[in-house]
């Protein structure tokens, strides 16, 4: 089993979710995060003083998937998350030993 993690622009979440749904993905988990990267934050003036925001709001998707489905899912995410502008984010894949569905106790593929 694999865990696919994607850090993307918040405005892309809906499109990605729709694409993954079409792709047969049955579930995923979303977290609000803040990113620091090549896309710099803003420097603004607030009441006359400099206001530097170094973190940019992003959304993190976590998705458990079978090894065989990983590449398709990664491609779908990359396609729908891309604007071509700096700050589009990352997708990464890591290994998972075991997955359990709490409701039923099913494991691995069956747990998705």
């Amino acid at each position, binding site marked *: 089993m694999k865990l696919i993690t994607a850090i993307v622009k918040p*405005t892309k979440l809906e499109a990605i979710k729709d694409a993954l749904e079409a792709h047969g993905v049955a579930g995923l988990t979303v977290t*609000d995060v803040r990113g620091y990267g090549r896309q710099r934050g*803003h420097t603004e003036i607030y009441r006359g003083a400099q206001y530097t925001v170094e973190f940019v709001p992003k959304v993190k998707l976590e998705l458990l998937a079978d090894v065989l489905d990983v590449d398709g899912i990664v491609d779908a995410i990359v396609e729908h998350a*891309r604007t071509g502008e*700096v*700050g589009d984010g990352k997708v990464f894949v890591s290994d998972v030993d075991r997955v359990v569905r709490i409701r039923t106790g099913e494991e691995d593929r069956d747990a998705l």
Partner: protein
Amino acid sequence: MRRLAKVGLLTGALLLVAAPAYAQQDGPTLEALELNVLVVFLMVATVLVFIMHAGFAMLEAGMTRQKNAGNIVGKNLMTITLGIITYYAVGWALMYGTQVGGVVGTDMFFLRGGSYEPDALLEIDFAFQAMFAATAATIVSGAVAERMRFGAYLTVAVVMTAVIYPVVGAWTWGGGWLDQLGFVDFAGSTIVHLTGGVAGLVGAAALGARIGKFDAAGKPRAIPGHSMPLAALGVLLLFFGWFGFNGGSVLALDGQAIAGVLVTTALAASGGAVTAALLTRLTNGKYDVAMIGNGILAGLVGITAGADVLSNGAALLVGLVAGLLVTASVSFVDSIRIDDPVGAISVHGTCGVLGTLWVGLFHVDDGLFTGGGPALLGVQVVSVAAVIAWVALTSAILFGALKALGQLRADPDWELEGLDLHEHGVPGYPELVFGAGTPSTDTRPARELSADRTDGRTEA
């Protein structure tokens, strides 16, 4: 044409248009002016009491959890509006209609018929007093917050403003048997606040505690409200409105009385804050801001019965005592496993009793401690008991019936997930629950949107 004109013209011209009969009858006499000014004074008082409903809304929202924030303010919106209609249709009649046996009024439904012709005083008096009726009802909403069904609450609000409060009013301000006994309750420590507090107590008891309020051993656990700024705003709006609640209750253009009442009101509220602050600091080492808010309200409830007949010193003192009493009462209510999320029972019930009895003790002329003997105190005690009995009985029937019908308490999962979602379909703060910017709405292909903004950003 709508412009102010020179006064001579104006009084003539506009009045003739607006209310010819009236203008003819009154003319530019001192009496007519006094009446008109009295209406303006009561308009001020009415709007001040009205805005107390915003105060209750903010206080109750701030002192409960965010998952129920829409629900609680929804209750407040309905209380004042339903309350006005119900009091117009029924409540006023029971309270101020021609009485039967000193117990209840019987005419003037929809403000029609009865002993008064519809006129300026009736109308403004109704407006002022309708706000009071809704206040008695809204006190309940705090005590039953976060677990009662919305529909059931609407029923309670209707019955409170149609029957329970008006009957108390009939006995007292309506000239009924307690009034004849000599009961003194200037602006309603008992009539409004204790009535609301007792109904809240019965409601909270009938409902049971919120899930999680008491641990397995029955020990109370704090469930802090979600926004101290909203709670503080609520307290200050209530304090603001209370100047109208008490000031307007002079019900006459009597500057002496009005000024005195404003000062006693301010002093008592202030006293409540100070002792609540000090007591929490002394016992817990920290100043409990929510309790300071309760202390202010406790002082206000405490002065309400005697705002016009207490010296400034006695007013400050009742506030100081109320601040202590409310703190003790909140813990006591917890200890008997009644769950009152905002402290309504302690603020309005306990301190309602305090304020009423205080008049018996410190009335400038007739108080026990001011040389007036025990008579007034006796009357105050009897009256408090009578009101508690009536309200407890009727609200027990009301809440009991709702419970028997299975309509009283929200389902556990509604309560756990929040009443907002289940009763209203949308959380009070949707973006705190479902993420900012919901719905995330960038559904057009990227090329249709202009390129993401890059100003002020550099590519590394």
